[in-house]
C-alpha cells in the first residue's frame, strides 16, 4: 500500500495551495487556493490533471480547506461551480463564516477596480458555501466508511486548522499554515502525538529563526508612532481578517497607553463586519483573550473608525488599514499611489508579499519608483517598514512539530525553493526522516502502514497478561520477557489469521497433542551410606541452585522439580531409563524426566548431578 501526494499548487512556491493525497484509494484535496501574483491561467491549480473527463465527484472523496486566506480557498467557487465538483467540502466554523466575505471582497477588487473578466460570481460564492460542512476542533468525522478526518488548532488566523486524515491503518497530517507561538489574539498550534506515515507541512519561513516577538512589536509601534507624531500618514495594507485584528489590538492598546488621539481607520466595512465575527467565534481565539472576554471584548476597538474615500486627501496624521494586502490591487494600492510620494508618510507591510505584487517590489529593495499594473509610475519617497512578526511558524517551529509528530515521511510545500532545500537537508540529517520537496505537478509516493489483523484467543491474552521472565547468562545476565512467544499465529488460506496459545494449536488443527520429553535415570550417590534420602534431595537442590541461575526448585521427600524437570528417587531394580553401564554400579538413582522446552536446563541439572556423583565416588575411593 502506498500514499501518493500529488502537488497541484504551492509546490516550491507560495500561493494557490492545493495538495491532493491518495491514501488507500481515497483521494482528499487539501486546500483549493489561487495565486495572488498571477493574472493568467496559472492563477488556479491545474484541475484538469485530476480528471480529463471533468468528472471530479468520482475522483475526489472530499475537499478540506484549512483557512480562509485566498491562497487556500480562492479557487473553491471556481472548482465547485465552474468545474462542477459536487462532493463534500469541510471547513472549520470560522472558515465557513469568513471565507465568503474574503471571496466576495476579492471578487469585487478583481472585477470592479481592475476591470478583469469575472471568474466567479456572487451567486457562485453563495452556492459554493452551501455545500460546505462546518466542523469543530478535534471533532472526528467519518467521511465515508473508511475515511476519517479530524481538525486540530493551527493558530495562524482565526479558524485555521491542521487536518488529520486516516484511511485504514494509514494516516497523514496536512498542516495548512500554522504558528507555533501565541500571538495577540490567537493561540499556538496544538496537535496530539499521532502515528503518521506522512506529514505535509508549510515552510514559508524555512530558514528564518525568530527570537522573541516583543522587540519586533515595539519596532512596529515606534515606526507608526514616529510617523504620526511627525504629521505623516501611515498606511497598513493588509487583508481584512487576521493580521488586521492583531495589529489593531496592538495599536489600540498602544494608543490607550500613550494617550494618542490620532485616528485609526479601517478602509472597508468588511473589517468591521469581521470584528463582529471575531466576537462570536471567541472560542477560537487564545486562552488569554477568552478569559478577558467575559469582562471586556477585546475586539471592541476604542480608537478605530470607518474610513471614507474623501479622507485620502484630508490633512493631518492618521493610520489606515486598507485592503487588500500585498498592495496587489484595489483600495490599498489607490491610497498608496497618493501617499507614497510624501517622505512624511509610512507604509508598513505586514507579513509575506507574493512575487509580482507591489508589496514584494517594495520589500525586495529600496525602489525610488514603482510600476503600477496599468503602466503608471509612482515615486516612492515614503518610509517603508516591514513588520517583522508573522503568523507563520519559523524554521524552529517546523522542526519542533516534525520532531514531535515523528512521521515516517515529510513533504514540504508553501515555501521558496532554496530555503526549502536547506530545511529538507536539516530534517533528513537531524531527524533522520525522509523529506521531499515536490514541484507543482509532481507526485511523491511513500509506503503506508498496514497491520495484519488476527483474532486472538482468550487463553493467549490471559497468558500475555502475566509476565513470563526468562533469565539467561551466556555472557552476562539477561532478563527477557517472552510472554508473546507462547503465542502462535496460525494462517489458513482464505481465512482470517488466528492467534492462539501454544497448547491450543493442536486443537485448532484437529490433532492430538504429542508430548516429546527427555528421560534419564541418573545415578546420584553410591549405595550403602545410611544417609537419609531427604538429605540427599536437599543436597542436590543446593548444588543445583548454585550452578543453575534463576532456578526455582520445589522439593519434597523423594523428588525435586525445576520447571518441567522432574526427578524422583528410583527404587526399581531395573529402570528403562537407566543406562546399562554406570561408573558406580551400586548406586542410588534419580529418575529424571523433562520436556523439550527445558532442554538445556535438564542437561545442566544432569551435569550437576553427575559431577556430584563423581565427587562422592572420589571421596569414597579416597576413604577406601
Amino acid at each position, binding site marked *: 500500500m502506498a500514499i501518493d501526494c500529488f502537488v497541484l499548487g504551492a509546490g516550491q512556491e507560495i500561493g494557490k495551495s492545493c495538495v491532493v493525497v491518495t491514501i488507500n484509494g481515497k483521494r482528499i484535496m487539501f486546500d483549493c487556493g489561487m495565486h495572488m501574483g498571477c493574472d493568467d491561467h496559472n492563477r488556479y491549480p491545474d484541475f484538469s490533471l485530476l480528471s480529463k473527463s471533468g468528472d471530479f465527484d468520482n475522483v475526489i472523496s472530499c475537499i478540506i480547506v484549512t483557512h480562509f486566506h485566498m491562497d487556500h480557498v480562492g479557487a473553491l467557487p471556481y472548482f465547485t461551480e465552474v468545474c462542477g465538483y459536487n462532493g463534500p467540502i469541510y471547513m472549520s466554523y470560522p472558515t465557513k463564516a469568513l471565507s465568503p466575505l474574503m471571496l466576495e471582497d476579492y471578487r469585487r477588487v478583481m472585477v470592479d477596480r481592475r476591470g478583469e473578466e469575472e471568474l466567479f460570481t456572487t451567486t457562485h460564492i453563495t452556492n459554493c458555501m452551501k455545500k460546505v460542512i462546518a466542523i469543530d476542533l478535534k471533532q472526528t468525522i467519518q467521511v465515508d466508511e473508511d475515511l476519517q478526518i479530524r481538525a486540530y488548532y493551527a493558530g495562524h488566523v482565526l479558524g485555521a486548522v491542521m487536518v488529520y486524515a486516516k484511511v485504514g491503518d494509514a494516516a497523514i497530517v496536512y498542516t495548512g499554515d500554522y504558528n507555533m507561538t501565541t500571538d495577540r489574539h490567537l493561540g499556538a498550534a496544538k496537535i496530539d502525538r499521532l502515528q503518521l506515515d506522512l506529514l505535509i507541512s508549510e515552510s514559508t519561513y524555512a530558514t528564518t529563526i525568530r527570537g522573541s516577538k516583543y522587540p519586533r512589536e515595539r519596532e512596529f509601534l515606534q515606526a507608526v508612532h514616529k510617523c504620526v507624531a511627525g504629521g505623516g500618514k501611515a498606511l497598513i495594507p493588509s487583508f481584512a481578517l487576521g493580521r488586521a485584528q492583531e495589529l489593531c489590538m496592538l495599536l489600540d492598546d498602544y494608543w490607550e497607553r500613550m494617550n494618542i488621539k490620532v485616528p485609526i481607520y479601517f478602509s472597508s466595512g468588511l473589517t468591521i463586519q469581521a470584528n463582529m465575527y471575531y466576537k462570536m467565534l471567541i472560542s477560537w481565539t487564545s486562552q488569554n483573550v477568552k478569559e478577558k472576554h*467575559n469582562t471586556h471584548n477585546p475586539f471592541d476597538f476604542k480608537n478605530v473608525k470607518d474610513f471614507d474615500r474623501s479622507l485620502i486627501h484630508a490633512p493631518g496624521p492618521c493610520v489606515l488599514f486598507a485592503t487588500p494586502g500585498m498592495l496587489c490591487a484595489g483600495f490599498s494600492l489607490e491610497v498608496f499611489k497618493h501617499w507614497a510620494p510624501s517622505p512624511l508618510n509610512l507604509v508598513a507591510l505586514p507579513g509575506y508579499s507574493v512575487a509580482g505584487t507591489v508589496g514584494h517590489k517594495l520589500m525586495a529593495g529600496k525602489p525610488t519608483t514603482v510600476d503600477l499594473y496599468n503602466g503608471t509610475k509612482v515615486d516612492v519617497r515614503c518610509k517603508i517598514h516591514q513588520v517583522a512578526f508573522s503568523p507563520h511558524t519559523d524554521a524552529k517551529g517546523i522542526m519542533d512539530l516534525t520532531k514531535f509528530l515523528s512521521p515516517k515521511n515529510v513533504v514540504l510545500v508553501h515555501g521558496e525553493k532554496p530555503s526549502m532545500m536547506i530545511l529538507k537537508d536539516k530534517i533528513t540529517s537531524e531527524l533522520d526522516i525522509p523529506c521531499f520537496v515536490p514541484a507543482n505537478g509532481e507526485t511523491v509516493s511513500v509506503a503506508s502502514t498496514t*497491520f*495484519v489483523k488476527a*483474532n486472538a484467543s482468550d487463553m493467549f491474552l490471559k497468558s500475555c497478561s502475566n509476565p513470563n521472565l526468562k533469565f539467561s547468562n551466556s555472557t552476562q545476565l539477561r532478563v527477557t520477557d517472552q510472554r508473546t*512467544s507462547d503465542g502462535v499465529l496460525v494462517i489458513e488460506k482464505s481465512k482470517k489469521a488466528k*492467534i492462539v496459545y501454544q497448547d491450543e494449536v493442536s486443537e485448532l488443527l484437529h490433532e492430538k497433542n504429542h508430548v516429546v520429553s*527427555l*528421560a534419564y535415570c541418573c545415578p546420584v550417590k553410591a549405595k550403602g551410606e545410611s544417609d537419609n534420602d531427604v538429605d540427599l534431595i536437599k543436597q542436590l537442590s543446593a548444588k543445583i541452585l548454585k550452578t543453575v541461575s534463576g532456578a526455582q526448585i520445589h522439593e519434597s521427600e523423594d523428588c525435586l522439580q525445576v520447571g518441567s524437570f522432574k526427578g524422583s528417587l528410583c527404587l526399581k531394580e531395573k529402570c528403562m531409563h537407566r543406562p*546399562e553401564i554406570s561408573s558406580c554400579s551400586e548406586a542410588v538413582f534419580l529418575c529424571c524426566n523433562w520436556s523439550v522446552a527445558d532442554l538445556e536446563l535438564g*542437561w545442566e541439572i544432569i551435569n550437576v548431578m553427575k559431577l556430584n556423583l563423581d565427587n562422592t565416588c572420589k571421596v569414597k575411593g579416597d576413604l577406601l
Partner: protein
Amino acid sequence: MELTCLSKGDGFHYPPCHMLNLCGFRILIDCPLDLSAIKIFSPVPYDVGFEASEYPSSDVSLDAQDPVQKKQKLERQLTPADLVCAEPWYKTVKALHLWEASLIDVVLISNPMGLLGLPFLTQNPGFCAKIYMTEATAKIGQFMMEDLVSMHKEFRCFYGPGDSSYPGWIKDLDSEEVPALLKKVVFGESGDDLGSWMRLYSLDDIESCMKKVQVVKFAEEVCYNGTLIIKALSSGLDIGACNWLINGPNGSLSYLSNSILVSLHARNFDINGLKGTDVMVYSDFSCLQSAEVTENGCISPNTDNNYLSTISSDNKDEDLAASLLNTEDSLEEMEKLAFVCSCAAESADAGGSTLITITRVGIVLQLLELMSDYIESSSLKVPIFVISSVAEELLAYTKTIPEWLCDQRQEELILGEPSFDHLKFNKDKKIHLFPAIHSPNLITSWQEPCIVFAPHCSLRLGPSVQLLQRWRGDPKSLLVLEDGISSGLALLPFRPVAMKVLQCSFLSGIRLQKLPTLLSVLQPKIVLVPDAVSQRIDLSGMKINSILSFSENETLHVPRIADNTSVEITTDLASKLSWRKLRQRENFGIARLKGGLLMEDGKHRLVTGLEQEESSGKARPLRYWGTVAQEPLLGALLKMGIKGSIEHSTSENGLENSIIHIANPSSGLIETSEMCTAIVAEDKNVASQILQGIDEVLDGI
C-alpha cells in the same frame, strides 16, 4: 461487562446515575443532585407579616393520586409549619455512597444536570478518576452550580453559620408527629436515605472539582488508558448534552441518556454515530414521567410494528431514520412554548405579571426568543427581566457555540445573524439582565406588569421566592412552573395562592412509541433497557440478539459478544516471523510470535519489541502433535548416522508402546506411544540428534 443502576432519577432535573464495569474499568455515568428534595425546607421568610398559622390547613390539597399522600390525608394535613426551618441540605444519589470513590476510574457527565453532585464526589481525598464531559456541559454546569451556591447564600445569611457536622433538623424529624410525606423524602422508602444528605459545597469546591475535569469537544475521540476510546455525541436534550460511545478491545458500547430526536434549539440526536454497537445501554427513564403511560398501562407498539413489517429493514434504513426525525414532536413542543407565551401576554394585558421559574437552558432561550418576538409584533409594552447570578454570562456563552446549535440556527450564526432572535432584542435594552433581585439598577428599570425569568424551579431558592411572595395574592398574575415537581408541596409555603398557575411539561426524553423504530435503526446486538421500559413496551419482535432489562440497585452481567479479540500485527514484525509449513496441510502456515503486545487506541497491537536472543537462530519446537511414525524416524536417524532397532511392547497400563533401541554411537532408546515420546540417552549430543529426527517426522511449533 456489568451495569449497575444507582438511581433511576426523576425527570430532566435529576438524570439517572449508573455504574459500568467495562474492561476492568469502573465508569460512573452522571452524578446528579435530587433538587426536588429541598422542598421539605421552608424558604427564607422575606415577608415579616408572613406566618404559617394565618393559613388554615384545609386549603392544602395535595395530589390525590399518590396513595401515600392519601393515607396522610387521613392522619393530618401538611401545613407550612411542618416544613423544616433550617439551612437546607442536599440529597445526593444514595447508592453512590456505597462505592469506594477511589476505585472509580472514569466519570462521564452527559449533561449539565448530571454535574451538580460531582463536587461532593471530588471532595473525597481518595478520588482520582478521570472526568470527561463536553465543553458546553462543563461551562453550563459550572454556571448552574455557582448559581446554586449564590442562591443558597441567602439561607446561610439567615440562619448563620451552623454546625457543619450534623444537621440538627434531622433529629426533629424523627418524631411521631412528623407527616409521613416529609419522612419519606428525608429517610427514603426504606428508611436508609439519611446518609445521602449533604451540606452544600462552596465555590472553592466547585473550582477544585472543575480543575479535575477534562473537557471534550463535540464528537472528539479521547482515549482512556490506551484501552477505551470515548466519544461524546449530541443527544439533542439541551446544549452540551450528549450520549456516549465507548470503543474498547472487547467491542463497542453506546450509552443513551435522555435524548430528544429533533431539537428546536440544540444539535439533533446523532443517530449515525451510534449505529451497530455491540451493547447499547438505554437509560432513558423519561417514560416514567409521561402521562400517556400511566393511563393505559402498557403501550402496544402495534402501529410501529406494522410499519416495520411493511418495509424490509435492510434497504429502507434511511426511511426509518427519517421517520424518527419527523418534526411532529418538535411541533408539539413549539405549541407548548407558544401557549406559555400567549398566557403571559394575556396576563400582561390584564395588568398582571408573569413569573417563569423554568431553569432548563434550552427552554429559557426559546421562551425568551418567542416572548421578544411576540412583544415586538404586538402593541404590548412589557419589559422582560432575567434575574439570575449567571444570566449574563450564560446568555453570552450561548452566542459562542455554533457547534451545539441546530442546523438552522447554526446557519444564521454563520451568516452573521444572531442565532436567537432575542439577541437582537437584547441590544435594544428590552430584555434586562440582573444578577440578583437587589441589584442596584433593577429598581430603576423595574416596571410592572412584567415578565420575569427567575430560578429556582423548586420555589425554595433564588429570586423566584421573593417574587412569588409579592405576587401570590394577585389573581391577574401568572406563575409558570415546570411539571414533574409536585406542585402541592412546592406551593405549600405560599398558600393561599390567588395567582394563576401554569404547569407545563416539556419533552425530556425519547417517546416510548419511538423506541422500536430507534432500535431497528441503531441495530445494537444487545440492548439493555430499564425494567420500567420493558414492562411498558413489548420489544420481543425486534431483530436484536438479546434484550436485557435492569432495575435500580441491581447489577446486571452482560455476556461478551465477540468470541475472539482482534490483534493487529505490524507488517515489519509479521515479516520477521519464522513460518513453518505443515505436513499434509498445504493451506496452513504457522509461526511462533515475537515482539511485545501493547494496548494502543483501544486495540491490542503486536509490535517489534526488544528483540530477544536474535542470534539463537531458528528456535526449536516446544509443542508437538500427531503420532511418530517409526520407520521414517529410523530412516531419518540413519541419515545422521544413528542406528536403531524397533521393539514392540505393552506397558503396565495396557497402552501400545514401541521402543527403538539405539546402540550406535552411544546407547539410548526412544520410547514412543500414541500420545508421547520419551528420549532416553546419556549423551546430550545423541539426544539432540534424535530430537532433530523427531522434528522431521512430527509437526510441531
